């Protein structure tokens, strides 16, 4: 208790905090811009994919499966298993997988967390048009 006489620095800091506006932002009214390069939801460029299956083999979480579609075999991303390490993007010899900045992926339905090729194609197109909805 000996130092009671000296005014702690904290007293001034608290007073100044009262006069500042709060640091926290009112999400979801206010959204923060996410930097480019953020590892969000996957984008697949199906025209580049050569169905080699390296993404499926190299995924540490076993979250990618190749499925048959109309033209060729394409990867399906299981976002509930994915750890967003993007080893798939590293392993892909044709750079057909890229991260997007979409991060609001929570859902109450499991189907929405499995990115199937049709959804991937459309999400790629949507992102080009600046429509960042799920």
């Amino acid at each position, binding site marked *: 208790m*000996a130092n009671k006489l000296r005014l*702690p620095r904290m007293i001034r800091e608290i007073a100044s905090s009262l006069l500042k506006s709060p640091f926290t932002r009112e999400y979801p009214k206010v959204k923060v811009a996410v930097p480019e390069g953020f590892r969000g939801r996957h984008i697949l460029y199906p025209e580049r994919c050569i169905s080699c299956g390296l993404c499926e083999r190299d995924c540490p979480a076993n979250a990618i499966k190749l499925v048959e579609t109309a033209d060729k075999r394409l990867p399906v991303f299981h976002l509930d298993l994915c750890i967003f390490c993007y080893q798939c993007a590293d392993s892909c010899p044709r750079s057909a997988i890229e991260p997007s900045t979409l991060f609001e992926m929570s859902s109450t339905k499991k189907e929405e967390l499995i990115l199937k090729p049709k959804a991937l194609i459309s999400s790629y197109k949507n992102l080009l048009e600046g429509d960042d909805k799920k």
Partner: protein
Amino acid sequence: MTSVEEAVSLLKDKLGSKVIECKTPKPRRAYVLMKSGYHRDAISLLLETFDETGVSTITGTDLGSEIELNYHIRCRGPVVTIKNKVPKEKPQIMTITDLIPGAALYEREVFDLLGVVFQGHPDLKRLILSDDWPEGSYPLRKDWDPQILEKNAHNLGGQSSIVNGGEVEGATSSVVKVIVGPQHPALHEPERFSFKIDGEVVVDVEPRLGYVHRGIEKAAERLMFFQDVHLVERICGICNAAHTICFSQAVESIGNIEIPPKARYLRTIIHELNRIHSHLLLLGVTGFELGYEPLFQYVWRDREPVLDIIEMITGNRLLTAFNTIGGVRRDLKPDIHEKIKKTMNKLKKQMRFYKNIIEEDPSLRLRTRGVGILKPSSAKKLCVVGPVARGSGISMDIRRDDAYAAYDEIPFNVITYEDCDSWARLMVRAEEIVESIDIINYVLDHVPGGPYRVKVPRKQPEGEAVSRVEAPRGELLHYVKSDGSAYPYRVKVRSPTLANIISFREIIRGSYVADIPAALISLDPCFSCTDRMAFVDVNNDRKWHWSLNDIKRLKKRS
């Protein structure tokens, strides 16, 4: 400083006949295979001759018919690994806890997971696996069958695994045993502490680890080397960069892969950013534990720009996924340099304010000064690492002693304090933040050009490597052994908190019960890192750590 040649020649001179084989594949690393039972002589010779030695960890590897025990002895810079083999049918070996008490937990770990009995160990019982684990079932052995858990399912969840928080025993004697169970609202990570309290003084404490055990070491044997980098990253969210750097370095050492200079510098940047945000986290949590909420909120507010920088560089705030075997995965563009520098300099100014608070705030001093004293002699015997050691005056820093990444080309200071109490440990961390900021600024000015990654084959040659980094909490050690395939044969992780938790007993014995928060938080325990070993399908019941202070003292008074 000792060099590895000195150590090896000493061993060969004094114990030449007992040495079977001796390898020095890299500078500062030696692997000495001793005849069965002569490990004690080698270790005591090393401990006595050179100062600043300690046991980093003990690794057990199942080699089929034998179990190989690696005693990793650090001689400040170099690491000399004394190997010893015991037959699998009768795995027994003499303990080394009488030579150096700090090896106690490591021997228990090997006993728990591989079944090696250490004769003469004062307290050989389970460390990581749960109390109801089937007897005789050792997960890290190659012939372990997970089906044994299914067969024993009816036995699991027995009485011993249920802990009542705050159970009071021995109401008639003056010493009361209080168990602070897994679930406690103030704990950040689960573990169990059994306190023996007499009045207001803590007589003894026994931490029980293993509640966040996920079986990472065993799981790492089933993934390829480059996939393991992602697995190892998730051992701990806070020190993830340290784990990936350590593991990548181990594999690069096995495969004789030389990473480009730019990769070394970029690794340093991420490593230091990791350290800054981890120390800031601890500063805030200290404030919270001591009831000083404004400090907590301010520090975490100032931590946000650091996380934003990490997000800008790596794509995610915490789990960076930046390192890989052969270098780093992304480049750092020069236009980001300015942003990083701005944030760092702003943080440096704020750190002056926080250092002022820790040094001078009366209530904080009341709670942390003279609390949790760890004498330097105890610190050396218990082989503590990191800020805990540096707060007791032991100058130990892997970045300087066993330089990795770009640290051999960067000037920086190692911060030590002589006060040995919680306050000193806090100050060490606060000043290390400022050092890290300086390192980052230096690195940004000196990043060389060139490639940031080299291509690495999937298969690694046969070999083994010990890799150490200075994680925010201290010395982090990875031991990787490869058998020539694309999958590692053995991965061993020894996180700094395991080295430091053994000192908790020393710190708190004889202290007031009410000092437990300040003492424990100054160790910066990260139990996610500590409990990661062996393959177990454990249900992660997150419990809350910590203690009941004063329970007993007031119960006695009333």
